[in-house]
């Protein structure tokens, strides 16, 4: 647990970067600090490992005042990941990862094994061990940065915009894997970003700061999107926050309508039998493959003729996923599948919206 108690940083030139921050980052969860540029996110983060010394207030880690600890010792117990990874150019990947264990005096073989294990843990091939940082892409370097921070298995991690210097596709991958890792490791993480989408995606709790390092609101992502406390937070949360908020709302209870489906190789006449403008195609296990337009089918259904635009959703997923399935389907009927990915039926966006509007029944969904 990290607790800011009136933490303040006034720089020598008079800039108040953080003005009396009170915040609690709970053990085993991800707390995201988000806010506009210059609002004091980095300063707040770096006060935790005393890369910046607070000028007022206290910061406690598990009820120990960080100010009372030796700074270097404190830092060795905290994972630290920064935007441009900051790998050591002269050290190989495995040696970069081994940095903190070495500082802690672990023996050689334990250190090496741990480093090799982490290379794979963060999704890099084992053959990268002997490479140097300049032989890696930005995204790969960032993974090494995460591995290096995890090396000594610190309970607390500080991450300052770790994924913001890579392209959107890689960022998405890194975010997914970060969440997967965290679900295995359960670290106490303080994560800085200026991107509200990243904040609501990763955070168990999101703290929005305004300039001057003042807390505007701290809440779980769904609450933040649904119920911003003021105009500043509302603006920051963005225009389509209503729609994005559905991502945190369980899908409403709906009964999918049964959908006539055909398999690959079905003849054109057979496809036209239902009379619908679009016909769903499934494989032999009834897993959805795509849609076809009977009017344009001239030969038995083949894979390369399928329209694959529609997403699929599950009944125990989010409202956003099920609404998106309906909206993205060329037929207007969103495909709903069971846990094995087999077709249950379809729903229309009108049905989803209607269900969302009716008051939620007593714990209607969200159950496994």
């Amino acid at each position: 647990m990290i607790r800011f108690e009136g933490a303040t940083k006034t720089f020598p030139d008079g800039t108040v970067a953080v003005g009396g921050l009170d915040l609690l980052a709970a053990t085993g969860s991800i707390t995201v600090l988000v806010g506009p540029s210059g609002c004091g996110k980095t300063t707040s983060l770096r006060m935790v490992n005393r890369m910046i010394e607070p000028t007022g207030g206290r910061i406690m880690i598990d009820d120990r005042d960080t100010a009372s600890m030796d700074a270097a010792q404190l830092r060795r117990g905290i994972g630290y990941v920064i935007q441009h990874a900051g790998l050591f150019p002269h050290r190989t990947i495995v040696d970069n990862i081994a940095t903190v264990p070495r500082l802690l005096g672990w023996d050689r073989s334990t250190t090496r094994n741990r480093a090799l294990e982490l290379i794979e843990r963060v999704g890099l091939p084992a053959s990268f061990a002997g490479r140097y940082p300049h032989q890696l892409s930005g995204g790969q370097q960032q993974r090494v940065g995460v591995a290096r921070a995890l090396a000594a298995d610190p309970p607390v991690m500080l991450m300052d915009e770790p994924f913001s210097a890579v392209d959107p596709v890689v960022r998405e991958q890194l975010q997914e894997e970060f969440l997967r890792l965290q679900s295995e490791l359960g670290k106490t993480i303080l994560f800085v970003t200026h991107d509200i989408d990243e904040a609501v995606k990763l955070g168990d709790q999101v703290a929005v700061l305004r300039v001057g390092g003042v807390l505007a609101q701290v809440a779980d992502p769904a609450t933040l999107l649904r119920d911003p406390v003021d105009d500043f937070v509302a603006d920051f949360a963005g225009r389509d926050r209503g729609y994005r908020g559905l991502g945190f709302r369980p899908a409403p209870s709906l009964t999918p309508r049964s959908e006539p489906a055909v398999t690959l190789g079905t003849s054109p006449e057979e496809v036209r039998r239902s009379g619908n403008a679009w016909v769903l195609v499934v494989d032999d296990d009834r897993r959805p493959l795509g849609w076809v337009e009977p009017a344009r089918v001239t030969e038995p259904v083949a894979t390369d003729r399928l329209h694959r635009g529609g997403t699929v959703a599950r009944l125990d997923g989010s409202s956003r996923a099920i609404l998106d399935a309906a909206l993205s389907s060329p037929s207007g009927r969103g495909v709903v599948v069971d846990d094995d990915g087999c077709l249950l039926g379809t729903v229309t966006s009108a049905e989803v919206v209607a269900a969302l509007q009716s008051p939620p029944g007593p714990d209607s969904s969200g159950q496994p």
Partner: protein
Amino acid sequence: MNDVLKWLTDGAHWRGGEGIPLRLGEHLLYSGLALLVAAVLAVPLGLWVGHTGRGRYLAVNVSGGLRAVPSLGLLFAAIMLLGPRLSGEAGVFIPSELVLVVLAVPPILAGAYAGVEQVDAAARDAARGMGMRGWQVLWQVEVPNAMPLVISGLRSAALQVVATATLAATVGLGGLGRFLIDGLSVRDYAQMAGGAVLVAALALLVDLLGATLQRLVVSPGVTGQTGRSTARTRRGGRLRLALRS
């Protein structure tokens, strides 16, 4: 040209109390000692300036100023000031070494502080953030990454010193400069040119040694990425300078 070759290949010049091997040995002694003293002074100082950022202004100006000092003038001034207080050969030897040290300090100092300064700020930040203490950051991160520039400073200094160590002969000491001075006094141009060729060859050899050192001590992770071309042009410049003098 032919005369020079004849002079260089004449077996008599390679023997005895005034032969080429002895002069070469003397030359190496003067140069090596000066370089060693300069490195012991300037490398730690440069690393410290680069690490702390303190005294940078002073370091830039002092090394700039030292570069502007004319070697010959300094040599005579030093002999006039120090000579009377020292006995025998030391009266010229120490002033000569002093001149060479003054010559070698600026490039070594500049190489060391510039080397540390150019280390990736994110890498230093990460080093500190992971719990390295100041000297660990210096020793484990800054020094290894500064190595290319540190060594290129040493190589520049070595070339200048090897070329300038010829001055020792003007005040009665040995070294390859003897062939230039003695040759001049008896108008033996073959000997003079032969001496110059030897100095140039030695300079080349020393630089080759520097290149080998660089390959041995610099991590491939660092060279694969930075400094190669700058080091090369720098060296080329020095080499031309060395050959001219």
